[in-house]
């Protein structure tokens, strides 16, 4: 089992993000798992294996958040083709034009001093 005195599950995930990779885990019985954990949930038991997603997915649910004086930004739940779901943002398209069922592809947002790189999505027609 992962040594929590050395590194967190999120730490490993973020390390992959820095390399441009969207990482997730699979349980011993082959089921995809997100968010990353230190132990397998439910009855799966056993070891968790890290994998890298191909980064292609489908919008499961979407909203546009409105703030003062700025255009609305998107928040979406994305179903990755490998079978796990995550919250993210679809960029490169008007927040209100993000539709459920839309195909999307991951890319890493560079982040900044405080925020390590993190995955966002953009439309991926025909994929």
């Amino acid at each position, binding site marked *: 089992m992962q040594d929590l005195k050395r590194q967190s599950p999120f730490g490993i995930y973020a390390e992959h993000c820095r390399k441009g990779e969207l990482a997730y885990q699979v349980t011993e019985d082959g089921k995809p798992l997100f968010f990353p954990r230190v132990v397998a949930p439910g009855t799966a038991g056993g070891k968790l294996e890290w994998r890298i997603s191909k980064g292609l997915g489908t919008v499961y649910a979407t*909203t546009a958040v409105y703030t003062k004086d700025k255009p609305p*930004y998107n928040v979406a739940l994305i179903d990755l083709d490998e079978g796990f779901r*995550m*919250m993210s943002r679809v960029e490169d398209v008007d927040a209100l034009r993000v539709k459920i069922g839309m195909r999307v592809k991951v890319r890493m947002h560079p982040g900044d001093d405080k925020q390590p790189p993190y995955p966002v999505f953009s439309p991926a027609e025909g994929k």
Partner: protein
Amino acid sequence: MSGRKRGSVAVVGAAESDLGQVAADVSPTDLMAQATRRALDDCGLKLSDVDGVLAAHTQSRMAVLQLCEYLRIKPKYFDSTQIGGSSFMSHLAHAMTAIEQGVCGVAVIAYGSTQRTVSRAAASPREFNPYESVYRPFLPASAYALAASRHMHQYGTTREQLAEVAVAARKWALMNPAAWEKEPLTIEQALNARMVSHPFTVRDCCLVTDGGGAIIVTSAARAKSLKKKPVYVLGVGEAIGHATISNMPDLTLTAAAESGPKAFGMAGIRPADVDMVSLYDAFTINPILFLEDLGFCPKGEGGRFVSNGAIAPGGRLAVNTSGGGLSYCHPGMYGLLVMIEAVRQVRGECGARQVKDCEISLAHGNGGVLSSQCTVLFGSEAAL
């Protein structure tokens, strides 16, 4: 099952604290204590009769300690279960067990919040989650908006149908002197209001008010000798799903589909037997989801069910007669007030908004981001 017995306990006292906007420096415990005092006066019991204390709110991690210190109660039974706005339905279920087992005899369930006075950000600071916070969802609204987007996509639910929920709540609120909102609202106004998190405008979102409440629970036997007619607990059901919206398996199906059947099973009744429904309406999608999941209409039909004023005064089903979290009062964890209205309807105390011959009411609590769902069925003596 839980071992709990239908009708073994009753709500004998119920009261709101001062609601809306309270004076500066009023504490949540001031409101809990005020509501407790009023609820005791409502049933004729004394503070010294209370030997069970259940409480939760967001401005202290240890609400029970605060309330017991304030009122100088040394309870035999206490519980600060915190699962968000449905905590109090859960408290009622736990109090029922404690009273049945003789652990305590008279339990108070209390809540207080000053979120309007101190600001929502101060009253309920957001918990950081590295897999969600980075995307800046406006929580909780955005989580419910995501669920609404999915319901609209899957079942053809419309923004107009969401607005119907807000308008119905407002019509009820205008019949409730304690309600925060005092002006009429039209579908058009709701649709054209300031957008918050699509598809929700500010009219799809609950109020941000101060407020609190308390209910007093005791055994059915003891309840008979008190001031008001007892409102019996016919059934309770508790269920939890996820903690974060990213981990909710199906955004159109809530754990109310588990808590509801548990409560109905225990009560031995069906949705058609219910005279009035009190649903936690944090957002307009909530009553639509809960009407489906609790069995008042088939899955996916909630939007059509609420159309044409069907849950407004004079409609086919009386829903949220207080005006709800949307138009009456929403101090942050609104579940206790959800129960108070359901109790008052069975007592026949609701004045202009009273549902005729209300013998059975349902109070449904929701917590987190559609996370925890707890259902209570109340009944009069005739419903026993």
